[in-house]
């Protein structure tokens, strides 16, 4: 398969070109601007047949996406940070209307103070919106996951966002294996939606739904979310079988004999793998769980994967403002409640606003975890990496 030198943004734009969606409506925002900028050049060069709608804000962009999706179109957009936050109310509408829109998202912190660099606060702000959330580790993962996301969204009729770490991946060039256009088209197949305004018999989309049925419709949305794990798994298996690579919902790295597990999402997983190798060379039985999918939360998979763990070090690139730790920590602990107190947990908030995290820092918290594991006690369940105060 040919490898091309692409940044995360270029890889996502290339996936969009090969998908050739019917409609893309977007508004630019750093560090996701390039995705839509490159895609706009595909439109003007006639490489895609997409109807491109440049809007005056992200709120309008996602609104246009919802309208186009209701009309039966395959729809995509790209955004980041404040842009995703401005989309917030419409994200719930897309999910509630079961519109299988795919967002190429680039993770960036939220203001204030203003900052253009990576953390996961933006997508974590919409984790309750009813969107599937996939966190890519690198450009290859981003490219492959965007293609898979179309199949997933249009099978379970749930909108899906695939995100990369802002600048760290969005602007980092690496070799990316690119499929042939036909392979991508064959894999995603023709567009499927739950309904269409132009499907024949007239329908109403988004009418008032009060005490009589709102409850059922929202529960069905949650049910779709729960069962989508099966689809996520099946689509990935098919992708792996056809193209020789894939991304499990949770990727386990050197966990077979590990009683100490590190958990992370996004680009940090790659850095953590090097730290794990380093600690293993010193005889520490530590492994990594890369959470590739955060929504739906893969609680059953995690219960199984952590069943032999004595200590879990969680790396969270956002906080919940609950004083209980970051979202990965809070949700994993909840999932593992029945198994506690056998498993000890420590959470580390790191990398807010793009603060770098290196191999040594991860190795250091693994060492700290080893000590706590031996003592059988967690001194500080919530701590920070790389904080200067």
């Amino acid at each position: 398969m040919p490898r091309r030198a692409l940044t995360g943004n270029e890889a996502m734009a290339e996936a969009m070109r090969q998908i050739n969606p019917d409609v893309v409506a977007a508004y630019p925002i750093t560090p996701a601007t390039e995705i839509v900028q490159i895609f706009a050049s595909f439109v003007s060069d006639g490489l895609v047949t997409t109807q491109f709608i440049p809007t005056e804000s992200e709120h309008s962009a996602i609104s246009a996406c919802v309208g186009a999706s209701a009309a039966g179109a395959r729809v995509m957009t790209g955004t980041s940070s404040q842009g995703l936050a401005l989309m917030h109310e419409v994200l719930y509408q897309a999910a509630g209307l079961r519109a299988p829109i795919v967002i190429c998202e680039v993770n960036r912190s939220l203001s204030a103070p203003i900052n253009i660099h990576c953390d996961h606060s933006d997508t974590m702000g919409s984790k309750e919106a009813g969107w599937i959330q996939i966190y890519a580790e690198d450009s290859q993962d981003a490219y492959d996951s965007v293609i898979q996301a179309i199949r997933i969204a249009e099978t379970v009729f749930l909108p899906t966002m695939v995100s990369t770490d802002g600048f760290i991946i969005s602007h980092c060039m690496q070799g990316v294996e690119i499929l042939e256009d036909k392979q991508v088209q064959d894999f995603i197949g023709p567009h499927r939606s739950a309904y269409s305004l132009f499907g024949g018999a007239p329908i109403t989309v988004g009418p008032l739904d009060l005490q009589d049925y709102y409850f059922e419709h929202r529960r069905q949305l949650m049910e779709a979310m729960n069962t989508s794990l099966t689809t996520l798994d099946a689509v990935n298996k098919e992708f792996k079988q056809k193209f020789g690579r894939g991304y499990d919902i949770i990727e386990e790295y050197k966990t077979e004999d590990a009683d100490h597990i590190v958990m992370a999402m996004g680009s940090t997983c790659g850095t953590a793998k090097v730290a794990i190798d380093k600690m293993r060379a010193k005889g520490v039985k530590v492994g990594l769980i890369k959470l590739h999918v955060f929504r739906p939360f893969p609680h059953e998979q995690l219960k199984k994967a952590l069943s032999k763990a004595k200590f879990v070090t969680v790396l969270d690139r956002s906080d919940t403002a609950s004083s209980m730790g970051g979202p990965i920590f809070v949700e994993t602990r909840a999932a593992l409640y029945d198994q506690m107190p056998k498993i000890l947990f420590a959470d580390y908030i790191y990398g807010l606003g793009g603060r770098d995290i290196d191999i040594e820092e991860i190795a250091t918290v693994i060492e700290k975890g080893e000590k706590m594991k031996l003592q059988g006690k967690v001194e500080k369940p919530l701590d920070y990496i790389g904080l200067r105060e």
Partner: protein
Amino acid sequence: MSDIFEVRWHGRGGQGAKTAALLFGDAIMSTGKYFQAFPEYGPERMGAPVQAFNRSSAEPITMHCGIKEPKVVVILDPTLMETQPVTEGLKADGIILVNTNASADSLRQKLKLKNQKICTVDASGISRELLGKELPNTPMLGALVRVTDVIGIDDLIKFVEKTLGKKFKGKPEVIKGNIDSIRRAYNEVKVTDGGGK
């Protein structure tokens, strides 16, 4: 991990430090190796000090942390040596490659370097002569290939010919100018080993 080769580029916005890093990375890939190329993450401003980075390895590279201890530092604009910490983290057995006419001895004194290899080439002069403008980044690639063993000069030239061939189809003089400037810098770069080695 130990076989990962890391480079830090120093330039000014508009000088092509980022482009050079991307080209170098792409050229590394053309030889079958793995690479990363990334700019210093921040707003782009013409003339302001900027950095760009490369990683190269025979194996896939998974780490995504910043580069703190580069094996090689490339300086596109020598005035940056006055204001920027250009030698920060440079490995003790590292290489510093500067676009300058100044002598290696004067640079060793100015930058307080010990055993690192100092390499100099007048990339600006070469680019003015062969490309008709101040574009030191392409010739510096030729010099970089000479002083390291990541890829060969023929690999680089083959790659640049192919890449520029697509971009400047109707302008063979641009392609020739770039290739000539790469060869010239490759041939003219002066290498001075550190004392005590």
